[in-house]
């Protein structure tokens, strides 16, 4: 299936916005591994603008924005 993945903030250093062909039922957690984002970053997956649990399967046409909350103060 085809999805669009978008990085935000510091995640831009790991991949660029792109359309991807991925295995049906791929989860955000597996996608994060596939994109080689370091495991030490706690990731949030915003699927079509809303936080989705990392183990939920993605669907055809989803727009997935990967975000971490690593932040300053």
């Amino acid at each position: 299936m085809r999805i669009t993945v978008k990085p935000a903030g510091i995640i831009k250093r790991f991949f660029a916005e792109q359309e991807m062909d991925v295995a049906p039922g791929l989860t955000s957690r597996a996608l994060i591994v596939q994109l080689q984002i370091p495991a030490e970053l706690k990731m949030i997956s915003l699927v079509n603008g809303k936080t989705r649990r990392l183990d939920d399967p993605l669907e055809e046409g989803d727009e997935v924005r990967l975000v971490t909350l690593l932040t300053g103060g």
Partner: protein
Amino acid sequence: MNGNTGIIIDVNLSEGFIDRLAPPEEWYLRYVGGSGLAAKFFWERGDFDADPLAPEAMLLFMNGPFAGLKLSGTSRSSVAGRSPLTGHWGDSSCGGYFAPELRYAGYDGIVITGRADKPSLILIEDDRISIEDASDFWGRGIEEVNRSLKERYGKNHRTLVIGPAGENLVKYAAILNEGHHAFGRAGFGAVMGSKNLKAIVVRATRKEMSLADPDRFAELRGDLNLRIKEALASSVMRENGTAANLEGGAFAGDVPIRNFTSNSWEEMGEALAGSTLTEKYLTRRWQCAYCTIRCKRVVEVPDGPFAIPEGPGPEYETIVSFGALIGSMDLAAACKAGRVCNDFGLDTISAGGSIAWAMEAFERGDLTSKDTGGVELRWGDMETVVETVLRALAFRKGKLGELLAEGSVAAARKIGKDSLAYTCQSKGLEAPMHDPRGGGHGLALTYAMSPRGACHVADPMLFIEMGACYYPEIGLEYELEPKTDEYKPESAVISVALGAIENSACFCQFADREVTIPDWVELFNTVAGYDWDADEMMRSGRRVFHLKRLINYRFGLTAADDALTPRMLEPARDGEPEGVEINFSGMKARFYALMGMDPEKGIALPETLEQHGMTEESSRSW
């Protein structure tokens, strides 16, 4: 004594009295240092009836045991006392260069009471301590005074200076070290102003320190400095500063927009991001003493309406306070606003928060140009903010200056019209730039539980929810979903104790994320010889938390004050967290139960105090 010097400078400015105190060693063991030791001092010697701006009020500067030890993140110290902004316990932490110099000079802290009969400064040069005339500095901005002090005393003399805001008793006036690093929160710049104290200057010519196990400490320091330097989070902040991931926060709904009325503004994230600051305005990176992270920024805005020469650049909190929070995504304007606040000596969070509230009040018609002396307050109008509002605030000029110089809560009480409901604060302290509805629900709980008021650095909940903390030795091994209440009270009871340790040891929360619990324990034991284990360390953390709460109780605060405003708890109106409600009351009740606190009084139960060896404190509270 190992680690600490065991000596505190005691100054009464009314009498011109200078002494050296040697507090009982047990105070250090039980309350560590920094804001914890300051709380113990205040509990024992503070005047609970004194107005925060009265001569009798006690102002405390306190180092932690690691100051000057050349370990990344430990060049911080705390200022503390009764906050003029909130009326209860306040403390504020600052990095930079003051803490190590004070330590090298031979002191752990400074306790100041009284009011000088003319503008003065305290000069500390090793064993020589004096009160000097500072009349020629009064009325002048921090940048100029910092420069003049270095010309007068020497470039290696370290400075703490207040600006016009402190002199004019603006309730959220800051104190700046080297004109760059700020004791921002809770208004202690005004306390210095009320004492006619323009500056404190310190210089040491020696660097001797006594440690419990210097060899093992040196080994541990080498290891930690390297780990801190090489951590991914450090490299991110070194590259693009504390606002490096602002865009990520904006998409998640963590960045507050227009006085917490919105959590969605797509273009804003990149416009205000740390990478944009690097690309457009960064000239140099900078750091606190001995720190390998280098998250500080030096910037120049070469042209345009907000042009500024090369100098201190804004942190994340300043960028959002003078950006999204007041409806602007003009990064140059945020740089300029930050620079003006530094020079006037204003806390950027409370200044931005008070202005954001006023802009909303103006939009709603609760505040009119009659109340502001003709100043129109509009979202994103940075020219008015920078050119008019900040000066009005710092100098208490006109109706607008007098109104906003008291902070958003006092201003809201003054104009009424239910405008208190849309202040964004807890216990009178304006909230920092993380919206719990989008950032993490646990933060709502810890904002409310923080003794000084809404605070993201009183404890590491912000980092815990973002997954940056894994401490199995103390039971913190949850995988948290930020935007739920699951395991948040359970995490918060650990967080508040750990936060009390961080703020008493004066360890930067960016650096100490690399410090494991066994590392923490070994640091205390090799430096100060406490002979602690993890349980005893955490018990000290909880003790500090409980003591600050007891101080607040004596100031009249109860559990009812552990609250957030209706605005901060209403369901988010848009963006990722749209419609989401925070289960605040459920988390709060569970937190009290887990902490052994009374759900009405908001303080630890007698048996809890007993468990923490606080029998005397208990008898004075129950």
